[in-house]
């Protein structure tokens, strides 16, 4: 089998084409958002919101409302509860996050278990890339496009919010609203990515690409290009490898992102571990020569 056949063979199956489409869309969207999450220090918040949307999605399913709506409501509910627990008790934010999202997530699990439905728990938790229906695909495309558009159009405001929210305030903007919009977009993105890799692995797609890009560049504009490019590449590699190895697709996608991160972490020209070691050794040698 030559390389072309290797790449085209899976595309003969509709489910593989859909899987690839959903993976690439979810990967790009999560990666763009991850650039801000990593810089604001909201990685754990990404974890929390992506889990906390579960009961919202299930309830939306039960009453026949759009999944995105349920996700939005519970995404905001989670953020509000985390803030409330943090501000009105002596607990710190990490404990508040841990309590709120696990409780909401468990509520979702219980709801699924008592709801007679076609909702398969495994699919929600680990994703169901190979079982994406045409309707699922359309939902991912529309939700993804809307979220992506808002992120890109208002990217300068989000970046200013991440860098210096006091200055945003001084210019008469409302940083609270900017933050709330970003969290809303996080909830929407969770719904999209849930389809691809499931609740548990969404957080990987919301952190790894932005973190990888941050180790490669000093320009936020470039991060916004590098992160989605890496994530899409990892997504495609993951889907293909899982096809040939008959392995978990969502798992393979995130594993690929993790592998790319490791390479960058080690070999990034400026921030990489290897470059640092070399710089240290060179400095030592220079000192010895000088001495």
């Amino acid at each position, binding site marked *: 089998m030559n390389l072309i056949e290797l790449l085209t063979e899976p595309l003969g199956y509709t489910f593989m084409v859909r899987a690839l489409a959903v993976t690439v869309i979810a990967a790009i969207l999560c990666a763009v958002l991850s650039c801000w999450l990593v*810089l604001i220090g909201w990685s754990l918040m990404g974890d929390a919101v992506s889990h906390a949307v579960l009961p919202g999605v299930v309830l939306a399913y039960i009453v026949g409302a759009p999944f995105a709506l349920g996700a939005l409501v519970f995404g905001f509910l989670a953020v509000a509860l985390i803030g409330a627990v943090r501000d009105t008790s002596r607990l710190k934010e990490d404990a508040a996050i841990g309590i709120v999202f696990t409780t909401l997530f468990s509520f979702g699990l219980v709801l699924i278990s008592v709801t007679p439905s076609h909702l398969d728990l495994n699919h929600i938790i680990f994703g169901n890339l190979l079982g994406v229906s045409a309707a699922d695909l359309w939902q991912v495309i529309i939700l993804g496009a809307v979220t992506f558009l808002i992120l890109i159009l208002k990217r300068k405001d989000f970046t200013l919010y991440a*860098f210096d929210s*006091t200055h945003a*305030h*001084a*210019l008469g903007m409302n940083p609270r609203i900017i933050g709330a919009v970003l969290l809303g977009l996080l909830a929407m993105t969770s719904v999209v990515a849930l389809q691809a890799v499931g609740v548990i692995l969404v957080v990987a797609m919301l952190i790894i690409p932005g973190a990888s890009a941050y180790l490669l560049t000093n*320009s*936020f504009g470039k991060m916004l290009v590098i992160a989605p490019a890496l994530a899409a590449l990892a997504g495609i590699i993951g889907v293909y490898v899982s096809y040939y190895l008959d392995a978990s697709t969502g798992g393979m996608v995130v594993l690929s992102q993790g592998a790319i991160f490791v390479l960058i972490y080690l070999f990034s020209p400026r921030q990489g571990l290897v470059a640092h070691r070399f710089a240290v050794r060179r400095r030592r040698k220079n000192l010895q020569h000088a001495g």
Partner: protein
Amino acid sequence: MTLAIDVANATVHYGSLLALDKASIQLERGSVCGLVGMNGSGKSTLFKTIMGLVKPDTGSVLVNGTNPLQARKSGAIGYVPQNEAVDWDFPISVREVVMTGRYGHMGFTRRPRKADHEAVEQALARVELTEQTSRQIGQLSGGQKKRAFVARCIAQEANIMLLDEPFAGVDKRSEATITKLLREVADQGGSILISTHDLHALPNLADQAILLMRKVLMQGDPQLVLQPENLAMAFGLDPMNRGEDA
């Protein structure tokens, strides 16, 4: 003529902690005023009150004769943060930081126009950072960092500038550049409020000084306010005689 800043009898509590006690300050247009006081004396709280980040329990705040929100929306208030408030690893260049000063002049997507680019280049030239415009913000020296944020205020065309410890960790050359620049801004009608530990630099820079200890102990000519017996009121001793002040 309306005052640039008019804080009257502002009292601020954080929980049960009294941070500002019936503080009143007036800042005239075209003047530089130094804000002097110990850590915890309410300098930051006063800044936050002027910017509308903190609402006083009692008293009133007028900026350019209007409420702080209106003043902010008109782009009148420029702000230079203290070192600790900035993420120096943030992937943003000097030029991009200064460009954020122009956001109030831009539309929905903050796309810069020719006038914005020109304002940014001019501001960078005035703070003598033309060589460093593409550097990541953390790669500047202490003084250059401060100048970059001053440039942001200038690009913003803010007629009121609030500077939080602008001389902390700053070399002599940058201090001189910033001092000269702030005097120019004031001479062109800008109003500047500076919180500082650098008492030696104050008489050259400021027209007025305020001694703060939760309440305003004194407002007046810097030479007078910085008299040892007055500083003793605010600090418990005379920090100018100690060489380095803590």
